[in-house]
Structure formats: C-alpha cells, structure tokens
C-alpha cells in the first residue's frame, strides 16, 4: 500500500508500505541513482516476501528520489541520512534493510541488514565512466578527473541524475560501515549474479525470496 510521510524539509513524500501494525517493522533504503530503477522490482518483491513472513516494511521516497518533487540537486548524503532517520521514526521502524548504495544512508545505531553494500567512490566511478563514454560518442572529450573537480563545486549530471556539488563530494568519500547489530548479506548468499549488473531493469524472484528468508531467519533467531 502507499503512504505519505513528512520529510524534514517540509514536504510530503510518498512511501510504499506493507503495514499491518505488526511487531517487526523494517525501513528499506533502496539502491541509489542508476541502480535504483534496476533494483526496484526486486526490492518490492523482497518486501512482499517479508510481508508474507509477518514483517512490516516501509520504502520511503527521500526528497529528490522517485516520485518526490524536491530537486535532487539540493540533496546531500547527510540530508538523506537525516531523512532516513525521520522516516524510520515516523513509521516506528527500528530495523533497517539497505540495498546496495543505500548502505551509505543507514543510521549507525539502528540494527538490520546491508544487502551487497557498495561504496560511493565505486558507484561514482561507474557513473563518471558512462558520462565520459557517452560524451566520446558525441565527439566530446571529457575526463573523469576534470568532471570531478568541477562536479565537487558546481555539481554534475550523471546517468541522468542532477547531483549537487556537496552530494558529489560526500558520495565520493562515503564507504559503507557495519556497526554492531548490523549484518552484511552478500550476493553469494543469494546465489547467481546481482541484478545491478544487468544493462536493463530485470528481476529474479528466487533471489528476492532468498533475501527475505535470510532476514526472516535473522528476526526469528
């Protein structure tokens, strides 16, 4: 079902929820930027599977993401981290599941799971590479280095996402860290190749169910 939640910047944002008022409540932080569309179907199926296992889940749009009308270029990793906490509080969800680069937004003190976490510099490098390749195709020479230097102050459009300067600078330096009460789930725990490798959005129901099962087991333990 859909819900609305009040973000810190004053806007109302959309959330996809499986909320039956149950005891186990989990906020889901989706993959970032170019990976978000690729993994959305998978993410929602993980939530649906968790619903069947008796777990409430909440997938909030953060300002600038998905259906949000807030400009992406005004957002930073820090502002997003604050928003994640606000969403978790609003929904009364003390547990967190992060998907890929969503791990960079996870509140340090909230327990939960990190599925296939990805560092900011790695994802940024891929996005920069795509930009340099497509500029080359258009007959324009750009370099990752010069793009970054400009990007850190002026911001940059990468993979169709308009990122602000502070976002680029923070993203570049961000690495996922596992704190106490948090568990990493590797792609090898699900089997098969990660869906983020696909050129186009795709889905794997077995992987989604496996991820949900690992989390459900963890909750039962």
């Amino acid at each position, binding site marked *: 079902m859909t819900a609305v939640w009040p973000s810190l910047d004053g806007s109302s944002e959309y959330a996809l929820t499986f909320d039956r008022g149950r005891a186990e409540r989990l906020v889901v932080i989706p993959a970032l930027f170019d990976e978000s569309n690729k993994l959305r179907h998978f993410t929602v199926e993980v939530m649906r599977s968790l619903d069947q296992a008796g777990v409430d889940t909440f997938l909030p749009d953060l300002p600038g993401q998905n259906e949000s009308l807030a400009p992406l270029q005004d957002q930073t990793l820090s502002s997003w981290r604050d928003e994640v906490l606000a969403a978790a509080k609003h929904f009364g969800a003390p547990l967190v599941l992060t998907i890929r680069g969503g791990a960079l937004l996870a509140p340090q003190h909230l327990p939960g799971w990190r599925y296939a976490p990805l560092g900011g510099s790695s994802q940024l490098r891929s996005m920069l590479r*795509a930009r340099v*390749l497509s500029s080359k195709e258009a007959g324009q020479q750009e370099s990752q280095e010069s793009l970054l230097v400009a990007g850190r102050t002026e911001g940059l459009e990468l993979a169709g996402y308009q990122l602000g300067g502070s976002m680029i600078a923070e993203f570049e330096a961000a690495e996922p860290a596992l704190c106490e009460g948090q568990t990493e789930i590797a792609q090898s725990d699900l089997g098969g190749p990660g869906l983020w490798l696909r050129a186009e959005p795709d889905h794997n129901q077995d992987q989604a169910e496996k991820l949900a099962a690992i989390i459900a087991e963890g909750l039962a333990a």
Partner: protein
Amino acid sequence: MANETALSDTPSDDPIAETDRILRGILCDVLGLSAEQVALFGLETGLFGHLPELDSMAVAGLLTEIEDRTGIVIEDDEVDGEMLETYGALLGFVETKRQEV
C-alpha cells in the same frame, strides 16, 4: 550467426580460453542471457551499437566488471567504438591487457 566460430569449446587450461570464459560469463550477467545463448556469440557478433540495451551506462558497468574479474585496468582513453563493436574485438582487447599485467 551460424557461420561464426564459437570459442567456448577450446581447452580450459589456456589463458586465452580463460579470458573467453570470463568474458562470456560477464555478458551473461550484463545481458541477462543464459550460458547457452552466450556460447553462440562468435568473434563477429555485434555488441555496442548492435544491442540496444548496451548504452553508455551498461558499457560502463561491463568495463568495471571486466576490471574486477580479470584484474586489468581500463583507462577511458583506451575505450573506443572499435574495441566494443564486436565480441572478438572486446575479447582481443582484454586478452592483450591481461598479457601486459
């Protein structure tokens, strides 16, 4: 595709065959194809410019995956249309780089 040579039946203790196997595995994962489907790719099978799903973001992902699984580093200025145009061209590029390591 019927006249193209498939390399997937060469001996496996051979570095070139190993590169071929790694690269086919990556293409399975990037294109969402089965091993059987990718086994049909020959040297002349068209990639970038021929497969609509291989846009610049997908190629970036492909190159990063190649780097991660083969240990080579691919500089942006080494990437051109020719090296990505066919399976054979990409295979040749990766083989050469692996020998340099």
